[in-house]
């Protein structure tokens, strides 16, 4: 989630009021933004992704002053016509949507330029999904000659000076040479042509989705009027982004001018700052929140969050991207009402508790083993492939992760024993005997499952001390199965992890429940363990089924 830095002084100027620091902290948190810290004049606030309109001081102050009751209700913005045109060529199918506007009579200083750049960056990362869905450019108006064309071209045919560069470079070198080209090139993987904004004199304004031109696309303190373009793959997303920019600039004192967008088969005018409407049912609001608001109160709370209201409908400001359903309005009403002001109630509803039967069964095993002085361990489900195969002298199919955090955690474990041996390896300095166990999930490839993975819970028991041998682990299994009244047989088997002649399967009703045995010295050596180990690993789900069937 993006964090923005707001200047307290700017915020206070926009709100027109100074708040004590505690009140400020509290109100910022309760508005639905996460206050990280306040350092002298800087307020660091985390903005949730549903409120990109708060990513600038102006936007934040607008919401905040409504919330604290200074200037509530729907903001209205005037739009004048600029008579400027943007021609959208049909070639831009890879990024077909664009919306533009002009804002005049601005006064820029370092502070404002910082605010606009911060907003542009944060918005493109969140609302624009790292520029994939949309991105935005702002240009000093006086350098541009209208009409402008939005058109896709072969980058080999274009040369321009990208932002921050001293000379023109061929546009097809952007991905190699420009930092944004490197960063965002996967967006354009399948493109052969790239969309450009080009003015009527053939000068490049920008190459999408990478960079403005250094000649035309750089605002500074002398800039008074700006041209704004937003482009992307989703019209609504692009339009809301433009609305967030123009309203922010208007809040800075600018005047909004519209632009005529000329498509091959239609014309439209942007920006469109008309509020959208959504039906709001006061009974639904009260039921969900447990309140008893009347219409007047509800209107007041909506106004605190910047909404209007007319005839049972909420009027949603054109810069709000997050209102999909009236529950979104209900949340804003709850925020305006104050989360802290809701009572805490536990309703008197009778429901019957039920612990999961398998979980109960596992606890019975656990407490039997604790009675035998075993320690329960808790190991990761992700382990190195080599640990569960090579170290154990076996070959088998295991399930890898596509992008593991490191090779130490690159597969899902298919059995528990390697994890427990790793624990003993790391505990050689501690006191013996080291008798441990764990019941946990293992993962096996299984094409029959919708997820292609079968999950089972295994029980693994490990005895480690100088006097240990096969007999000791057999005694433990015998005790366990006797306590659960399971009749079983032990059948000698072969397993590469064990000493030949000291490994067996536990058989119940002709089905193997797992195995037990004394580990082969090569396995011990692989783990650099110098104390004998006897182990078992049983299918706990199967054990549970047997026990449930018997009882």
């Amino acid at each position: 989630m993006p964090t923005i830095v707001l200047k307290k002084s700017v915020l206070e100027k926009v709100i027109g009021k100074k708040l004590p620091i505690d009140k400020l902290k509290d109100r910022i948190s309760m508005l639905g933004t996460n206050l990280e810290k306040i350092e002298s004049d800087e307020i660091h606030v985390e903005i949730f992704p549903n409120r990109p309109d708060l990513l600038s001081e102006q936007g934040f102050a607008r919401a905040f002053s409504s919330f604290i009751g200074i200037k509530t209700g729907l903001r209205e913005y005037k739009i004048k016509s600029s008579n400027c045109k943007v021609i959208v060529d049909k070639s831009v199918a890879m990024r077909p949507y664009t919306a533009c506007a002009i804002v005049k009579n601005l006064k820029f200083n370092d502070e404002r330029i910082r605010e606009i750049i911060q907003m542009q960056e944060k918005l493109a990362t969140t609302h624009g999904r790292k520029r994939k869905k949309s991105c935005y450019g702002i240009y000093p108006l006086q350098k541009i000659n209208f009409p402008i064309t939005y058109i896709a071209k072969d980058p080999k045919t274009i040369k321009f000076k990208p932002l921050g560069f001293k000379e023109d470079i061929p546009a097809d070198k952007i991905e190699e040479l420009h930092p944004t080209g490197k960063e965002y090139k996967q967006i354009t993987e399948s493109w052969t042509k790239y969309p450009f904004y080009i003015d009527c004199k053939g000068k490049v304004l920008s190459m999408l989705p990478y960079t403005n031109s250094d000649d035309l696309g750089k605002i500074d303190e002398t800039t008074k009027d700006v041209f704004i373009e937003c482009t992307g793959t989703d019209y609504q997303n692009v339009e809301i982004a433009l609305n967030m920019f123009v309203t922010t600039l208007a809040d800075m004192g600018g005047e909004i001018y519209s632009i005529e967008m000329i498509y091959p088969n239609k014309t439209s005018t942007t920006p469109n700052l008309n509020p959208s409407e959504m039906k709001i049912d006061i009974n639904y609001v009260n039921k969900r929140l447990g309140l008893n608001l009347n219409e007047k109160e509800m209107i007041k709370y909506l106004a605190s969050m910047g909404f209007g209201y007319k005839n049972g409908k909420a009027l949603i400001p054109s810069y709000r991207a997050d209102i999909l359903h009236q529950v979104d309005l209900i949340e804003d009403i709850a925020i305006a009402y104050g989360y802290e002001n809701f009572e805490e109630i536990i309703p008197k509803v009778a429901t019957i508790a039920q612990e999961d039967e398998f979980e109960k069964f596992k606890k019975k095993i656990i407490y039997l083993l604790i009675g035998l002085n075993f320690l329960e361990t808790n190991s990761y489900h992700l382990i190195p492939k080599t640990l569960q195969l090579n170290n154990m002298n076996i070959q088998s199919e295991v399930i890898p992760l596509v992008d593991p955090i490191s090779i130490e955690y690159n597969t899902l474990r298919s059995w528990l024993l390697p994890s427990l041996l790793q624990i003993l390896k790391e505990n050689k300095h501690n006191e013996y005997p080291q008798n441990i166990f764990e019941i946990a999930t293992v993962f096996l490839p299984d094409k029959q499952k919708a997820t292609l993975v079968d999950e089972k819970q295994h029980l693994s028991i490990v005895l480690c001390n100088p006097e240990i041998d096969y007999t000791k682990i057999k005694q433990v299994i015998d005790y366990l199965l006797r306590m659960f009244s399971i009749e079983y047989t032990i059948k000698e088997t072969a397993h590469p992890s064990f000493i030949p002649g000291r490994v067996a399967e536990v058989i119940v009703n002709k089905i193997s429940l797992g195995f037990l045995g004394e580990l082969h010295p090569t396995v011990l050596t692989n783990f650099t363990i110098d104390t004998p180990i006897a182990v078992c690993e049983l299918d706990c789900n199967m054990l549970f089924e047997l026990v449930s069937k018997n009882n």
Partner: protein
Amino acid sequence: MQQDIQILFEKLHPLERKVLPLIKENNTPDKIVLASKLQEVEVIRALQWLENKKIITTKEELKEVVLLDNNGRTYSKIGLPEQRFLEAIKSSSQMTDEIKKFAKLDEAEYSVCIGLLRRKNAVTIKKEANNLQITITEEGKKVLEKQKYDYQFLRSLTAEERDIASLTLDETESMNELKQRKDIIRIELRKPKTISLTEIGKELSKMNFSVSITEKLTQEMLKNNSWKDAKFRRFDVEINVPKITGGKRHFENQAIEYVKQIWLDMGFKEMTGNYVHTAYQDLDMLFVPQDHPARTMQDTFYLGNKKIMHGRLPKDFKKIKYVHENGADTGSKGWRYKWSEEEASKILLRTHTTVLSALKLQQLKKQDLPAKFFTVGKVFRNEALDWKHLFEFYQIDGIVIDPNANFKHLKGYLREFFGKMGYPDVRIRPAHFPYTEPSVEVDVLHPVKKEWIELGGAGIFRPEVVIPLLGEDIPVLAWGLGTGRIVSSYYGITDIRDMYKNDLKQLREMKLWIK
């Protein structure tokens, strides 16, 4: 007093009984070892116990002692070389060979002596033919006188080392002289322990130590009734004993068991389920848009060998598709994008236990309501390991499906749960999750540190989640809470990785979850 002495006497360990009577005559451990014929460690141990019981006191003083070294031991018998040299010529001058013979000096000693004595003007040397004639001077006679003191000092060291502080002025001068020479004397630091009986000790040592005391009650004694005549030693029952440990649940699982019990006490049914799911179950069913940043590989573990594996979607997947694309019949606009089956069929490790809540909603029928469910289970996030982050950790999820549930109840359930966890002050703040509206962030006040700690998210499931799964817009209160911070704070763990370190010493020694 006498009774106390009697009890004290009966408590004496067999070793103490052997050592105590010897202390009056012997005031150092060495002497006691000799007198008792016990091993040194046994004596030291017995003395330690006696001292703990205030039966004896010991005193240790740092002091410097002087003692004979290798050459010194020889010289203390036959005299210092130059002393012998001078003795040989004391009455009349002698030739070299004569001196060597009389003073028993070898060639090397002889050369050293000559050099030394000449420097001190103690002798005159006259060359005669191939020989030297050596005569003592007046100065030489004085040197010889002084040598006698040095010799006496050496002799005084033959019996035992001497405390430097106890030396006379002359002796100190001799010592300073001799310590500059090779291997004659050595100065060492000593920390001698002297033992004396306390008043109690004196009383005790008057007791009759010849009475036989029984240390251990044996099966034999019980069988042959000899216990009747036995006098059992009284044990010091208050003394520290060696520590033992036993079998135990892992400390984190003790806490998890308690968490489960709270929800059971509150009438919730337990949900369990798999770790591996399709993105469809884990994310799409919960209305998380397919381009949501949390779905990227930076946050989520997808399964597959270099390429992500794709599982199978259920037959009715389109109801989820339409909700995402246009809201379907939920009254929502939807996310308004093209929903991808490919994206939904990706296989992942569950990123939250909320996936079980979603699956549970799908199974419920109207007659099951109202209903309350919880689960406590592991979740996985693609996060690098460090002292405050794990890639695998427990999460608590709960849902209340009740036509009459509302936001106030959500606050009520959360407060009740955290109160039982020992955190009675709960605060909620606005937050954002794609599947709840209103959404809240849950903080609790640490009762000691008085800091708010973030413990998870909660809210009321969006109709876009509930309607496709349950078939109707019924309020579903939901939460997904972390346990890590409460559990590690309870056990005093500062590095969260300790939860999975499985250091057996730590597992053995860790205090119980006492709640």
